[in-house]
């Protein structure tokens, strides 16, 4: 059932809206929450609308899953991780002050959860004869196979990177996030992000040339 802004406004008034949410109360009363801005949805959740969290999950599940996948390289673990990320987000969202965008905050939770997961689990290296998971792009099967094997080699090399370098590389390659956003997600400086990315590539190159 869609939640209307008008309903949200009433609940915020009952819950004692903070100055930051006053904008929500003044919002037009015809827009579905599903179309609302992330800040409005967060305010709705913080005001007690559990259903608002479903909207957040639906909106960000793909990005969170894709980040998690890049750390674990298989669907089952990525799905479990993404679920864990949203459970953590559910617990933390009531204290979310909106200093960063919701997406940035969720990426941060996703990266931290993924790093914790890979830190406690000994990295499992993929065998080179694992089924290649690359698009054939209409190329010759041998070429596709070689590309698949190379992808396995690169993924194994990425698994050996130090956590910060690995996280930086994943985020940088993911939708080509700018250094500033990666810094916000990792809670570090832009300079540190650039340095980590540089070292990650240098380490990868060294490992792949062996």
């Amino acid at each position: 059932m869609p939640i209307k802004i008008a309903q949200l406004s009433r609940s915020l008034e009952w819950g004692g809206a903070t100055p930051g949410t006053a904008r929500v109360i003044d919002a037009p009363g015809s827009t579905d929450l599903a179309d609302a801005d992330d800040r409005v949805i967060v305010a709705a959740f913080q005001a007690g609308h559990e259903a608002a969290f479903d909207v957040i999950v639906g909106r960000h599940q793909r990005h969170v899953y894709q980040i998690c996948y890049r750390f674990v390289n298989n669907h089952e673990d990525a799905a479990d991780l993404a679920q864990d990320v949203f459970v953590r987000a559910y617990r933390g969202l009531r204290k979310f002050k909106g200093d960063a965008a919701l997406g940035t905050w969720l990426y941060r939770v996703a990266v931290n959860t993924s790093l914790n997961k890979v830190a406690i689990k000994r990295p499992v290296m993929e065998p080179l004869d694992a089924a290649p998971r690359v698009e054939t792009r209409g190329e010759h099967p041998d070429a596709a196979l070689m590309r698949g094997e190379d992808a396995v080699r690169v993924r194994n090399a990425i698994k050996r990177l130090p956590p910060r370098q690995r996280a930086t590389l994943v985020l940088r390659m993911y939708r080509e996030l700018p250094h500033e956003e990666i810094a916000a997600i990792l809670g570090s400086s832009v300079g540190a992000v650039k340095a980590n990315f540089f070292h990650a590539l240098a380490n990868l190159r060294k490992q792949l040339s062996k």
Partner: protein
Amino acid sequence: MNDQEHDDLIDRVATALDVPEPSPLFWDHFPGRVRAAVQAAPAGARLGWWNRRAVLIALSASVAVAVASWTYVRNTSDTNDAPPAVIVVNGAPVDDWSDLDAESGWAIVTSVAESAGVEGLREAGFGVAPGGADAAIEDLTDAERAELMLLLRAEMKGDDAGGL
């Protein structure tokens, strides 16, 4: 690493980190899966700060009651185990009063006690109420008063030796 090598490596990493798209059904079911996980999470993990504070207060109160009970029981036990005070005093009399006599506080008490008569003290409002615990002092024999004096002196001297 020159630009060409850099670009090649970026390409290889991008291919390696390529994420296959899961089934559309996965996305349909995922919010429900998250909801179930949130509901199945341990209740403690979903406590609000006020509930955590309530738990802490309750826990602190329990600890305080436990400590108070333990202290009370220990003290009661010590009192019960201790031999009667008179016996202790008789068995181990305080034998050195010289430093007590040198106490200026004790000297004042002594001088006041020596100069004040019972009638005078009563007129001054230090009378003993009938039925009061301190009325028992008036009923003590001379020997018992002497014993009491020894006890009081020992107490004032700060000598709790021997389990008085």
